């Protein structure tokens, strides 16, 4: 059984399964270089997890998809996230505290 302590400090978005989720995952791998990116796929959603801090840059997601991506495009496909969120001009940051 997991407890609140075991979960560690993995943070990151929970994305609705689909094209945007895959692009966000790819972007996170690129924007958080050198850090391990874990995923957990469920029937309708994808958990993306990075230790302590995770950044997703709109432009990187846009590069993956080949079109402009805004905060709204991410929000529309992000029903939840682990950790705390900070919206920034060029992306969204998830932090453990």
């Amino acid at each position: 059984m997991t407890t609140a302590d075991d979960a560690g400090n993995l943070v990151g978005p929970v994305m609705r399964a689909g094209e945007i989720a895959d692009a966000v995952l790819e972007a996170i791998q690129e924007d958080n270089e050198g850090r391990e990116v874990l995923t957990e796929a469920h029937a309708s959603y994808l958990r993306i997890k990075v230790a302590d801090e995770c950044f997703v840059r709109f432009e990187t997601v846009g590069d993956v998809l080949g079109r402009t991506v805004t905060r709204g495009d991410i929000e529309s496909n992000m029903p939840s996230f682990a950790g705390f969120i900070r919206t920034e001009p060029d992306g969204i940051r998830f932090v453990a505290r």
Partner: protein
Amino acid sequence: MALLEMHEWYDLARDTNWTPGYVAEDEIFPPELSDPFGISVEQWETFDEPYKVCYRDYVETQRDKDIGAYSVKSALARADFFKKASPHWKALLALHFSPIGFAEFHSASAFARMTRFSRAPGMRNMATFGTLDEMRHGQIQMYFAYEFIKQDRVFDWAHKSSKTENWIIISLRHALDDVEHTRDAISAAIMTNFAFEQCFTNLQFIGLSADAAKAGDHTFATMLQSIQTDEARHAQIGTPLIQIMIENGRKAEAQQLVDVGFWRIWKQFSALSGISMDYYTPLEFREHSLKEFMHEWVVDQFGRNIKALGLDLPWYWDYFLHDIETFHHCQQIGIYVYRATQWWRPIACTSPAERDWLEEKYPGWNDTYGKCWDVVADNIREGRFERTVPVVPPLICNMCGLEVTGVAGVGRQVDGRTWNATNFHLDHEGRRYHFCSEPCKWVFELEPARYQGHRSIIDRVLDGTVPPGPDGFYEYMGQSFEERGVCGYDYQWIDGYDMPRAAAAE
């Protein structure tokens, strides 16, 4: 002229506090509605929205979300999903849409009060969008449920339920009134945005969407997640509030608000999500059990947030972990045997294969809850249908409004097993109050004056509020004869759902 980027003007535009010249500050922001904690306005002005949105972006994003959800609905309408859905899925949809749609619409008023009375400009911003979000959640769910009415009148209750005195609605309303609608803006926001929306909504709106996707109900799955994308944003109101409370010496108060809000909402979701995930979802489509989803979304994801913010896990955490595995199994039995008191068609969901699944997910299920179902099944097999409905009314908890039940693993040992209906009671000002659990009793004891006037459905029967006779009872609850629940499988479940009655008779 090029438009400025949002971050270039946001902080300036947000600064909407000023010193009133014609009326006293307290008349605009009465402490009992704005801040009973006496925190200075300078401190509230430090509220920094973790999730910043401007109106132009908001409208554009929400429009796209609606286009997404409504287009999935219209594309799939031709598939006639509902007509072909099993009684399992129909019960699940009824259980979701009937209590939730209007409850969300009412949430708009809670957010509007935060918008009006909070002294933190940043919070007022976020709560404005939250108000609009909750209107959307009311409307989209009402609209999606409306489609089913022509095939099943149960869905009338998506609109009707909140105006009735049905016992389930009394239970839900009492919890939501307590948490969202009858406190100052700060307390209501800590309870609603943090204790409720940062954890339990994920369960029903993301966890259940996984089951819906597996079941091929993509309209429902998309709608659920679309709603939750709003919740993920406006739920963030709670985080800076708790930080400001702690920094200003109000940790104990914040902790208590979280502990009360969390417990009250857990009880509701235990029944709602617990029965949906562990019983009403057809076996082949179950992504996880309630317990597994609870560990993912609440124990892990939310439990970490509580501690990271500098609060403690609620004092009843160990009991709560036990409750995750027990309470909803008891409620499912109660919902089925008292089925006429519900407006939908409850189902048992205890075919041999489903029992195996329950035993695997909740070891010991067969030896405890399973024994109750054996008795129900035997009575059906012998044609003693009247014996499948208890003659005595249940004992209802004076806090959560749900049935006081035996909880496996807690209480006195009987025949080598612990299974004991434990009634936690309290005598207060000449009246005895009954509770299902220690935390429900604890909530009452914190503020007896707040809760003592509330009467459960059973209190109303005993004091004559409910007219005598069985019809009086159902009419009081808003249920015409056609609106009283009957077994969704017409008792065929005892032989396993795959065996039609005619074949079984041969």
